[in-house]
C-alpha cells in the first residue's frame, strides 16, 4: 500500500506489543515460590496518523500510553510488529538510511549530548554523523546556538551546564541536519518560560515557513493548545481521538452544560437519565446559587432529549433554574475526559 500522498509522515495501521519476562516471587504459607511471568504491553494498537507539510501534530496521553514508542517507530529505532511508517513517501523499514537523513529527533529524558565536549563540539560531532560538514555545518551550528540562546555557553563543557541548557542543546542537535521532519518527545520539559516560549515560536516559524512536518509529544496542555494544529490522544496504545484542535474543543464544548440552580439536586437520579454521561456540582461564585455541570452524550439526536429530561427532572424536584450555559472547554478538560477511564 502506498501512503496518503501529500503528507510527510504517515503511519499506517501500526501495532507494537512488548513482552517482558521476569521472575516474580510470591510468599506462600511456608515457602517462597518463584513464578515465571510473561507480560504483554500494548504500546501501539492500530495507530494511523498523517502529518502534512507545514503542520504540527500533537501526541498526548498519560504515562506509558505509547507516545515515545510511536516516536521511536517513526525514527526507525523500534520496529513495528504490523503496519508501515512512511516518511516523504519512503518506507521506514525498507530504506531506513534514507529516512534518517530526513528526520531530526529529540528523545525524552536521554543524555544525547556528550558531556566532556562543549555545545559547539557536540554539534560538529553529531553534524558529521548526520553527513553535514564544512562551512555549512559551522554556519548552522552558530545560527542554532544563537537562536536557542546558548551562544554564551558555546565554549563551556556540557557537564557544567544546567538541565534545561542540555535540553536546548539536544534540540539543536536534532536540527543540525536541517531535517524535513522533526519529532520532539517532550521538548519543553525542564525549560524556563522564556526558552519554552522561544522554542515554541521557532517550531511554529520553521513549520510554517519551511514546510516542515512536526510531531510533538507533551504533557503540557498549554504548549499543545498553542502549538498544535492537530491533536492525537493516545491511551494504552490506542489512538482515542485524532482531530484538528479547534474541532476537538468544539465537539467537547457542545456537550458540556452548566445549569445555575438555587440548590444542589441529588446527582444519582440525574446520572440515570439516558444521555447524561457525567454530573457534578460546583460552587458558583454567587454564594446563593450552585453550578450543576452535566456532560451529555456527543450524539446530537440524544442530546436534546436528554436536555428536556434534565430540565423536567429539575422542575419535578422543585429546583429553581436560573440559567443554562454551554461551557467553553479547553484541551485539558477534553484530555481528562478522554483518558480518565484508565486512571
Amino acid at each position, binding site marked *: 500500500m502506498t501512503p496518503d500522498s501529500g503528507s510527510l509522515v504517515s503511519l499506517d495501521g501500526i501495532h507494537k506489543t*512488548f513482552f517482558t519476562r521476569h521472575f516474580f516471587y510470591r510468599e506462600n504459607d511456608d515457602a517462597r515460590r518463584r513464578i515465571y511471568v510473561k507480560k504483554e504491553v500494548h504500546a501501539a494498537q492500530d495507530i494511523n496518523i498523517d502529518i502534512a507539510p507545514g503542520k504540527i501534530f500533537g501526541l498526548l496521553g498519560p504515562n506509558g500510553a505509547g507516545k515515545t514508542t510511536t516516536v521511536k517507530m517513526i525514527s*526507525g*529505532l*523500534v520496529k513495528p510488529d504490523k503496519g508501515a511508517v512512511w516518511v516523504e513517501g519512503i518506507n521506514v523499514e525498507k530504506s531506513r538510511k534514507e529516512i534518517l537523513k530526513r528526520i531530526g529527533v529529540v528523545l525524552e529524558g536521554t543524555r*544525547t549530548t556528550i558531556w566532556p*565536549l562543549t555545545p559547539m563540539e557536540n554539534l560538529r560531532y553529531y553534524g558529521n554523523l548526520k553527513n553535514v560538514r564544512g562551512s555549512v555545518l559551522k554556519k548552522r551550528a552558530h545560527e542554532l546556538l544563537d537562536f536557542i540562546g546558548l551562544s554564551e555557553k558555546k565554549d563551556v563543557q556540557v557537564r557544567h551546564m544546567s538541565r534545561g541548557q542540555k535540553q536546548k542543546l539536544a534540540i539543536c542537535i536534532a536540527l543540525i541536519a536541517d531535517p524535513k521532519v522533526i519529532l520532539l518527545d517532550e521538548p519543553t520539559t525542564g525549560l524556563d518560560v522564556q526558552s519554552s516560549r522561544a522554542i515554541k515560536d521557532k517550531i511554529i516559524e520553521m513549520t510554517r515557513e519551511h514546510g516542515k512536518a512536526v510531531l510533538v509529544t507533551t504533557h503540557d496542555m498549554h504548549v499543545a493548545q498553542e502549538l498544535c494544529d492537530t491533536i492525537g490522544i493516545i491511551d494504552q496504545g490506542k489512538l482515542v481521538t485524532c482531530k484538528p484542535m479547534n474541532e476537538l474543543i468544539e465537539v467537547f464544548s457542545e456537550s458540556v452544560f452548566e445549569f445555575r440552580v438555587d440548590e444542589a439536586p441529588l446527582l444519582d437520579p440525574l446520572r440515570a437519565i439516558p444521555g447524561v454521561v457525567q454530573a457534578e456540582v460546583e460552587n458558583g461564585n454567587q454564594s446563593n446559587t450552585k453550578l450543576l455541570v452535566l456532560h451529555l452524550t456527543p450524539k446530537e439526536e440524544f442530546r436534546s432529549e436528554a436536555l428536556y429530561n434534565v430540565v423536567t427532572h429539575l422542575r419535578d424536584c422543585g429546583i429553581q433554574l436560573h440559567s443554562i450555559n454551554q461551557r467553553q472547554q479547553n484541551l485539558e478538560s477534553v484530555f481528562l475526559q478522554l483518558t480518565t477511564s484508565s486512571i
Partner: protein
Amino acid sequence: MGFFLVMKAEIIRSLIIMRRYWFRTLTGMAIGYGMLMVLIIGFMSSRDTITDAVDGRFADPTTATNFVLGFILGMFAFGVVGMFTQGIQGMAQSGVLEQLCMSPHGLIVNFLAKATVGAVTSVFYSGIMVWLVTISVNGVLYFDAFPVIVLLTLTFINLLGFGFMMGGLTLVFKQVGQVAILIRMALFALAIFAREELLEINFLISAVMHALPITDAAICLKYVLIYDQGAVNGEYASVFTHPSFYFLILNCVVWTSIGIACFKVMENWSRSRGTLGTY
C-alpha cells in the same frame, strides 16, 4: 566515504577528551606501568623458586618480554572487545546509542570508526608501555616495522569480528556485559600464555586454540618482536611463512564474517524488542 567522516568526528572527539582529561591519561599510564612491573617481578620470582634458578631474576629476558608483550596484547584484546560490550551497555544507558542508530551511516560504520580510533590510541599507549617495561627488565624487542604493522592490523581485525559478535549480543541482552568480562579475561590470559608449544599438545586443544581470536595473533607478534622471526634461535624465517600467520588470516575472515552477520541480525532483533534504549 561515510566511514571517514565518522572517523574524523571520532578522532576529533577523542583528541579533545584526551587533552581535557590529560591528568587521567597520564596517571592511567603510570598506574599501568607500575602494575605491570609488580606483576613481572612477582611472576619472575615465583618462577625462580619453582625452577630453582640461581642466576638471578632476569636471567632470561625473553621470558620477561614474552610476558610483557603478552600482557599488553591481552590488555589490547580486553579493550577492543570491551569497547563493544561495556561500551554498548553504557551508551544504551546514556542514550548516545540511539543517536548513533539515527546516524544515516549506520551502526556498523559508527562502531567500526569508534573501534579503529580506540585501537590506534591504545596501540600508541601500549607501544610506549612495552618499550618502557622492556627497558626496565633488560629485554630486547626486535622491531621490524612492516610485519609488526601488518600483524597489528590483522590482530585488530580479528578482535573486531569477535567484538562485533559480542556487541550484537549486548544490544539484545544487556546482561551479556557481565559475562563478557569473563570472556575478555580469558582472551587476556590467552594472549599472555599463547606459545607455539600450546599448539602441539594434541589435536583438540590446537583446534580450539586456532579457533579462538587471539592465539595466532599473539604467537605471530611474539615471533616477530621477541624472536626476531627466528633469527634469535639461528634460522631466520619470515613471519609471513609461519603457519600461524595463515591461521590468523583465516581467523580474521571467519570471525569478521560471523561478527558482522551476527551484529546485523542482533541489531534488527534489538529494534523489534526496543532494547536500543534503556530497556
